């Protein structure tokens, strides 16, 4: 159970990162390929402030976020006037620099030895992780709620206009560079904050956490889910991270010999999904025109059918159990037979088919929103 809470907490972090990237890239058109840099800087800054300087949780968070804000402001000033390729290269370079400095600056980060232990803000015995999990839900739900509202605001409209045609937006009197810099810094701060919040989750920080695959996981999730849709980040992360890292790696009945192949299989399916989406539906699973309410409604519907299927499966397995124990052979098996077969195929499916799992992941979204 503790492992599930850890995985779900990590999933929330990814949802948050994808949301920040959605604003950066989906709305504003800034291709930030250095997600792991901003996230990692926040996380390691948190570690350094807590472990090396022995600061309190709140002080360390505030200072870490300030570090990320300063870094992203400098990066923004340097690259936001460049075109997409320039920004892409510069942000990748930034994340590589962060990763390298973490290894080399041993006096501060302990280098490859690792930095720990980062404490949870409050410790209440076995409930600590659960409490922190709910805190993360609140943070990510707030971010999601903000994104939903940003889409309906005058600001969101301006961001889209700048993404579509910055030059014309400027010719209508919009200070596009200032707007881009501001929102780039704000969204990088969100990434840094999520990094700082990941530090207690991981407890012990090592440089091999700051790898480009974090950036790619966030990008793949966002592009799959729908980069322009306010719920694309959530849907995308549930499809990728939710299904593979949580459902399959933890719960699928895979034999130890096959388990070795799961991570490779995961990359393979990620790639396949990505190519499929880019070929057949480049905007991602969620069309930007689709209203969020409709997506949430569909998700709830998906969960209902899932629950109904589950019930039928349980009911049929109970009835077969009864009939086999009763040993009234023929009538029992023939009555349960037709009932059972569709249910069994349906449960075998979620691992392989995206749409079914998509429904489940979408429905999870409204629940985290409630606590805020």
């Amino acid at each position, binding site marked *: 159970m503790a492992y599930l809470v850890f995985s779900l907490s990590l999933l929330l972090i990814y949802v948050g990162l994808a949301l920040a990237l959605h604003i950066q890239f989906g709305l504003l058109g800034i291709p930030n390929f250095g997600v792991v840099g901003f996230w990692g800087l926040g996380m390691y800054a948190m570690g350094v402030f807590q472990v090396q300087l022995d600061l309190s949780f709140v002080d360390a968070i505030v200072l870490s976020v300030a570090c990320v804000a300063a870094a992203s402001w400098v990066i923004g000033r340097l690259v936001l006037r460049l075109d997409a390729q320039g920004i892409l290269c510069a942000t990748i370079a930034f994340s590589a620099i962060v990763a390298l400095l973490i290894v080399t600056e041993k006096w501060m980060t302990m280098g490859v030895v690792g930095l720990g232990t980062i404490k949870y803000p409050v410790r209440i015995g076995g409930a600590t992780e659960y409490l922190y999990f709910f805190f993360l839900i609140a943070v990510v739900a707030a971010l999601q709620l*903000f994104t939903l*509202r*940003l889409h*309906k*605001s*005058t*600001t*969101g*409209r*301006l961001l*889209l*206009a700048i*993404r*579509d*045609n910055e*030059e*014309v*937006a*400027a*010719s*209508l*009197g*919009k*200070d*596009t*560079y200032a*707007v881009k810099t*501001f929102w780039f810094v*704000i969204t990088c701060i969100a990434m840094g904050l999520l990094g700082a919040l990941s530090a207690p989750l991981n407890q012990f920080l090592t440089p091999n956490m700051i790898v480009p695959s974090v950036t790619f996981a966030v990008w793949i999730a966002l592009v799959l889910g729908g980069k*322009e849709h306010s719920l694309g980040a959530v849907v995308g992360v549930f499809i990728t991270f939710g299904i593979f890292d949580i459902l399959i790696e933890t719960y699928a009945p895979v034999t130890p010999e096959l388990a070795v192949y799961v991570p490779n299989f995961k990359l393979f399916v990620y790639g396949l999904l990505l190519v499929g989406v880019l070929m057949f539906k480049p905007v991602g699973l969620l069309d*930007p025109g689709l209203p969020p309410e409709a997506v949430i409604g569909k998700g709830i519907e998906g969960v209902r059918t899932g629950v109904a299927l589950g019930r039928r499966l349980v009911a049929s397995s109970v009835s077969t159990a009864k009939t086999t124990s009763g040993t009234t052979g023929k009538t029992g098996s023939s009555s349960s037979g037709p009932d059972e077969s569709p249910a069994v195929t349906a449960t075998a499916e979620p691992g392989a088919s995206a749409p079914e799992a998509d429904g489940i992941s979408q429905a999870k979204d409204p629940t985290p929103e409630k606590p805020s």
Partner: protein
Amino acid sequence: MKLTASGLSKSYTAHPVLNIQEIMFGGHGIEGLIGPNGAGKSTLLGCLTRRIPPTTGSVTFERDGQDHDLISLSSHQVAQLGLVKTNQRIQGFESLTIRDQLRMAATPPQREGWRFSWKPDPGDPELEATIDGLLDRFPFSNPDGFAKSGGEKKLVDILRCLIVKPKMLLMDEPAAGLPDEITQEVMGLVRSMVEEGELVVLIIEHDLELIWNNCDYVHFLSEGELLFQGDPDEVKNNRVVAEKYMGV
């Protein structure tokens, strides 16, 4: 409203495309700027609105008795002063509906700041009425949807510029890509706004009928230099213009 450029030149790697001693716009209601292809008309407009940095020269925009040096400003600041240009090529905001494009253009930047980022667009009844008026006047296939054809996009581009209430509007080939009757309607609207003293206009156009019918004053540009300017009749009958441009 006066826009003056002096000693303005623009060269691309030592290849001069524009070289103007002195030119002034805004003295008459609607002015025209004509000249053969490659004369530097669009480059001149780009330099005036700070979209293209000129090689040398100064540009001054006089508004409400105050002179503003445009060279030291960036393109959005020029627009905020009230100098706005429509585009020759079709350009727009693909992911905004026609209505949203107009709303976005007319919303002042201070109402798009971070304080407004989590509030739904409050809407401005006066602005909505203006937009309704414009959308009723022109035949869009679906005014609440996206601009589909090139003509619609071009028209939205012009309306977007009109709705920001510029003091001086520069129109780069407004007739190109627009059906004749729409061009007439646009020019009618622009003319009525000019007559009410809301703005002054400068039009670049190859459709000379449009220039002769609408303009009160015409500038003739050729090979980057200002060769002649005057009333439409003077320009029409000028020998240089006839030789260099009308091929007579």
